[in-house]
């Protein structure tokens, strides 16, 4: 999903500003830009942060770098740094909707609580119209003795249709599980703003009060 690089400090400081706990869902429909474009994606969460910068030399394929940082219950954080590939396995362009199956994954090195070779293959299915949206994703996040596998579903709707040059607001809700995380099931209602230049999402993950209060930020930029 979303990741980060030298933008890490930027993403981290944004998260810190917003609170110190952000659980980002970086699951947007688009995992890459258009031909000859670069995309920056960030995901900042209470237990995990990610950022990825990729480049699409041709439609349907993108290569880049990714960094993920996460920690389980009572564990030190582990950071995975690696090279990433994103590809469209199948796209359906329908008259009023689009659906995709994506592959995304990194190989790299884990450091921290767990050390060694790390790999993070994932599959994502999404379908959206100008008013409705659904996504399902599963991702392995593995290193020696480490397992942070995740699965997530999202569904949402836009409040109204907009023109190409306008910002469209969406309500999106996500349910996500990550092994070794607490809470085991993270539910995040969020407000998503989509513009032709950016994708921003602000949400709060359960529990929605007390010490566990966990706002989250998700952002994508294509250039």
């Amino acid at each position, binding site marked *: 999903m979303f990741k980060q690089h030298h933008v890490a400090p930027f993403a981290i400081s944004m998260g810190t500003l917003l609170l110190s706990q952000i659980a980002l869902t970086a699951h947007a429909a688009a995992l890459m830009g258009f031909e000859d474009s670069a995309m920056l994606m960030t995901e900042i969460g209470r237990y995990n942060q990610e950022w990825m910068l990729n480049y699409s030399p041709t439609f349907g394929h993108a290569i880049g770098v990714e960094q993920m940082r996460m920690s389980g219950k009572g564990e030190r954080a582990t950071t995975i740094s690696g090279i990433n590939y994103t590809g469209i396995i199948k796209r359906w362009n329908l008259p009023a909707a689009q659906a995709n199956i994506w592959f995304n994954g990194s190989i790299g090195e884990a450091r921290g609580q767990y050390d060694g070779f790390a790999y993070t293959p994932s599959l994502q299915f999404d379908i959206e119209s100008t008013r409705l949206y659904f996504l399902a994703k599963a991702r392995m996040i593995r290193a020696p003795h480490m397992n942070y596998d995740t699965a997530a579903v999202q569904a949402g709707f836009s409040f109204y249709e907009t023109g190409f040059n306008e910002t469209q607001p969406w309500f999106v809700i996500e349910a996500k599980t990550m092994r070794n995380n607490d809470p085991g099931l993270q539910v995040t209602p969020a407000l998503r703003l989509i513009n*032709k230049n950016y994708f921003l999402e602000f949400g709060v993950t359960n529990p929605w009060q007390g010490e566990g209060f966990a706002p989250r930020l998700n952002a994508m930029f294509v250039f």
Partner: protein
Amino acid sequence: MKKLLVTLMLSVITPAAFAVTTIKAEVNGMVCAFCAKGIEKKLNALPQKQSAFVDLKSRVVALQLKEGQDVSNDAFSKVIEDAGYSISKLERVNQTVDAIQAEIAKAEKAGK
């Protein structure tokens, strides 16, 4: 005399008006501005472009050509397909992008 003047004026204006060529396409899968930005960027980069227009609601992409210049239907289709979309209808019209935009806005208003 008046009629002659009007005829002369029309004969000057009409060829210019008919010289407008716009490639207009209906595009499938174009549901998100963030994802469709590539179409606009690629069209704007074409040296033959006079004006370009992308509309999510009507699924219309239009490219008005500079006078005397051309982009083949295949080249136009490639821009759309390279951005990840597919064309369901393609036509050449003697309308400016502004006129197409106004027509779509009018139709949307009437549809509300």
